[in-house]
C-alpha cells in the first residue's frame, strides 16, 4: 500500500450531519486516523437522512452518512454522562485534532470548552464549525444550510435567469447542502494551517469557523465593488455580467460559451445558415454588443430543433466549448469520469456496493486508496477502547451497561 499524504495525523471527530463529518472525511480519505464519536443508540443524525435503498430507512444504509464517513473508525460515547466525558478526555489526549460542529455552548456546558481541552492536551487543534461563529452579536443564533446561503448573500446573487421573476420568486439557495460542504473543506484548510503552527511552536489553538463567512468568501468581487464604487447588486438583469450561456435543446439544456473567436465554429455547427453570415457579425463589437439581442433568439430556435446529444456532437466537431446540463444519471455514465477513474466503488458491510464520487484532487505520489466503508455504529469500540486506550473488559462492560458507550 502506498504512503498516504496524512498518515500519522490523529483526528477526533465529534459532530453530526455534514460540516464536521465532511472535514473529517477529507482528512480520513488522505490517510489520517479519524475516530468518529457518535452518541449511543441513534448515532449521527445523518444516519436518518437517507437516501435509503428501496426507500427503507436503516441506520447503516443512509446514503449521505455512507458518503461522508468513509475511512473513519467509529465509536459510541455519551458525553452527557460524566463517565463519558472522562473517556472523551482520554481520546482528546490521543488526538492531534478535534473537529466539531456543535452549537457554540454545547461543549462549554459539558466542561469541555477550548481552554479545558487545551489544558488536557496543549498541542491539540480544536476546529469548531458553527453557522455564525463563536464571537459577535449573532454568536448564539441558530443556523442551517438554508440560512447560511441567505445571510452570506450567496442566495441573493444566485442567478436564475429564465425562472427569474422577482415578483414571484425569492432569492434561492444553492442546491443540496452546499454551504455545509463548503464549510467542511474550509475547516480542513484551517485545521491543516493550525497543524503546521503546532509543528513550529508545539502549541495548539482554536479554529473558529463561521459558515456565513465560509459561503460569503465566494462573493469577494461583489464586496469589493460595493466598497470601491458603491455598487449594490439587485436581482435585475442589467447588473448581470454576461447573458446566460444556457440554451434549450429539444430534450434538455446545454451550456455553451460563445466568445467572438468561436462564432465561425458556431455558424458551421448550424450548417452555415444565411442569417448567420451577416457581415456585421464579423467583429467582436458587432457580434457581442450591437447584434447579440437579435442573434440569441435565432440560436435558441436552432438549438430547440436538435437533441442535446446531437448539438454536443456537432459542437465538439467544431472544437467549441460546450457541456450538457447533466443529470446524475448522465454524470454517472460519463465516459470522461470513467477514464479518469473519478468514481469509486465502495463495498459496505450492510449497504453493499455503492458507486460514489471519489477524490477531489489527484495526488501523484500519494494517490487515494479505494475507500473503506463508513463505520457501523460503535464498530470500533473494542479496537479503540480496549486496543488503543487499554480499558479492561470489566470497565468496558460497565460502560456498556450504564449506556456510556
Amino acid at each position: 500500500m502506498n504512503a498516504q499524504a496524512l498518515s500519522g495525523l490523529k483526528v477526533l471527530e465529534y459532530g453530526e450531519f455534514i460540516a464536521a463529518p465532511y472535514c473529517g472525511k477529507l482528512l480520513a480519505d488522505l490517510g489520517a486516523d479519524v475516530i468518529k464519536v457518535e452518541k449511543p443508540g441513534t448515532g449521527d443524525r445523518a444516519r436518518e437522512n437517507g437516501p435509503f435503498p428501496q426507500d427503507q430507512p436503516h441506520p447503516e444504509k443512509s446514503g449521505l452518512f455512507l458518503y461522508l464517513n468513509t475511512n473513519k473508525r467509529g465509536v459510541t460515547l455519551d458525553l452527557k454522562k460524566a463517565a463519558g466525558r472522562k473517556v472523551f478526555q482520554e481520546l482528546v489526549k490521543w488526538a492531534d485534532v478535534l473537529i466539531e460542529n456543535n452549537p457554540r455552548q454545547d461543549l462549554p456546558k459539558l466542561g469541555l470548552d477550548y481552554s479545558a481541552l487545551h489544558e488536557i492536551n496543549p498541542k491539540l487543534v480544536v476546529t469548531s464549525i458553527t453557522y455564525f461563529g463563536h464571537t459577535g452579536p449573532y454568536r448564539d443564533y441558530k443556523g442551517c444550510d438554508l440560512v447560511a446561503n441567505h445571510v452570506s448573500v450567496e442566495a441573493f446573487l444566485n442567478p436564475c435567469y429564465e425562472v427569474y421573476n422577482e415578483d414571484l420568486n425569492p432569492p434561492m439557495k444553492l442546491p443540496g447542502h452546499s454551504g455545509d460542504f463548503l464549510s467542511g473543506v474550509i475547516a480542513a484548510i484551517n485545521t491543516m494551517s493550525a497543524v503546521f503552527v503546532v509543528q513550529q511552536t508545539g502549541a495548539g489553538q482554536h479554529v473558529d469557523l463561521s459558515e456565513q463567512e465560509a459561503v460569503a468568501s465566494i462573493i469577494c468581487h461583489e464586496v469589493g465593488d460595493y466598497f470601491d464604487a458603491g455598487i449594490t447588486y439587485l436581482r435585475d438583469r442589467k447588473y448581470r455580467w454576461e447573458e446566460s450561456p444556457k440554451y434549450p435543446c429539444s430534450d434538455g439544456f446545454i451550456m455553451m460559451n460563445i466568445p467572438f473567436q468561436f462564432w465561425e465554429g458556431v455558424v458551421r455547427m448550424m450548417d452555415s445558415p444565411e442569417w448567420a453570415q451577416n457581415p456585421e457579425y464579423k467583429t467582436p463589437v458587432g457580434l457581442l454588443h450591437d447584434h447579440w439581442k437579435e442573434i440569441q433568439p435565432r440560436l435558441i430556435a436552432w438549438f430547440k430543433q436538435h437533441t442535446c446529444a446531437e448539438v454536443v456532437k456537432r459542437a465538439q466537431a467544431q472544437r467549441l466549448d460546450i457541456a450538457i446540463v447533466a443529470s446524475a444519471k448522465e454524470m454517472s455514465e460519463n465516459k470522461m469520469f470513467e477514464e479518469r477513474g473519478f468514481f469509486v466503488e465502495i463495498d459496505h458491510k450492510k449497504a453493499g456496493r455503492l458507486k460514489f464520487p471519489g477524490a477531489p484532487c489527484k495526488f501523484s505520489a500519494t494517490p487515494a486508496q479505494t475507500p473503506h466503508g463508513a463505520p457501523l455504529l460503535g464498530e470500533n469500540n473494542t479496537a479503540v477502547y480496549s486496543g488503543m486506550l487499554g480499558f479492561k473488559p470489566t470497565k468496558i462492560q460497565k460502560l456498556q451497561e450504564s449506556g456510556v458507550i
Partner: protein
Amino acid sequence: MQKMALKNIKVLDFTQVRVGPQITQWLAVMGAEVIRLETKFRPESFKMTNNPGNLTTPGKYRVGYFASLNYSKESITLNMRNPKALELVKELVKYIDIVAENFRTGVMEKWGLGYNDLKKINPGIILISASGFGRTGPMKDEPAYAPVIDGFSGYSYVNGYPDGEPAEAGARGFSDSIAAYQGVFAIMAALYHRSKTGEGQFLDLSMSEADVALGPEALIEYAVTGRVQGRLGNSDKHLAPHNVYRCLGEDNWVAIAVSNDKEWKDLCKAMGNPKWIKDARFADAAGRRAHKDELDALIETWTVKHEHREAMQILQSAGVIAGASLKVQEFCQDPHIKERGFLIDIEYPDKSTIRRSALPLNLSVTGKGNYTHPPEAGENNQYVFGKIMGLADEKIKELEKEQVIY
C-alpha cells in the same frame, strides 16, 4: 509573520483569472511568499477589463477584481518568450516549494516546466495544476469555462425552482471557489506529507471533479435509489416549514427552517400564536410536510409585516432558525460581520486603502492571516532577482533593457 503556518514557503505563481489566483491567495494569507509571474506584454486579464473598482489616478493602477484575488502576493515580470527568461525561471525554481498554474494543458511542458522537469531542478517541488477537466483523460485540452463546468458537474441541473429551468450555479465564481478550496486543502496535505518524508508531488486539480466531490447529493441519490433528483429551490426533502418568505420592503425576504416540534412551537409563539396554527393539518411534522404550500402562505402573512432583518431578530430571539436574505450592501454593513473582523482595510505604499472581505481563516493564536497590498506588476523584481537569486543590480538592469525582465 513569525507564527504563520506557511512561513518559509515560497510559491511561484503562474495563475490567471480566478481559480488559480484564489488558491495562491489562501497560501499568501497563510504566510507563504507568493511570487506572481507576470509580464508587461500581457497584463493580467482583470487589469484589462472594466472593473467598477478601477481607479484612474495617473501613474497608479488599482484594479478592483485583481485586488480582490491577489492581495498579499508579490509580483515579478518575465517575458516568457525570451529563452533567457526561461533560464531565470528554472534557476528561481531551486528556491521554490510550490508551483501553481492553471494554463491550458501542455503550456508548462512547452516551456520545459512540466512536473518532471521541475522535479529534476528541485526534487521536493509540489506542483498544483488547476484545469477544467484534468491534465489526463479525454477532455484534458478543453478550456475551463465556469458555466460549462457547472453543466458538466451536475450543479446546474439541480439549481433552480421546482417549476422552472436549471441555472448556472451560484454567484459568480462559485465553481472556481469550490475547486480552489479543494486545491488549497490538497496543497496543505501535500506539504504535510513533504514535512514528514521530503517528498513532493504533482496535484492534478480538475475543477469538475473537485466540484462534484463537494456537491455529491444528486449522485448519492442516484447511486442508492436510481432516482434522478430534480430541482428543489429553497425547500428541503425532509423539513417543513423550510423556505424563504417575503418581508416588508423592496425585495426583502427571510429564510426560516424548522427541524423539530419544539422549534415549531417557538415559531408559532414568535408569530404571536395566530389562530391558524391550531389547524389539524399542521399538528405534526408529517402534516406540515404534506401541507407545506398552505403553511408557507400562512407564515408569509406574518413575515410581510416585518422588515427582513427585524424578522430574523424576532425569530432568533425566540429560538427559531432564521436568516435575512442579505443584499451585498446589507452584508457589508452588518454589525455581526463587522465585529467578526471579516472586512479588512488593506494599505498600499502610498497610504491609500481598499476594503475587502478577508478569507475565512480564523485561528485563535495565529490570527486571521496576512493581509498586504496587491502588487504592481514587477513590484518585487529587485527583491526576487536581487535578494533571493543573488543577481547583481547591473545584471538586473541589463535584463530589463533586453526586455527579459519585462
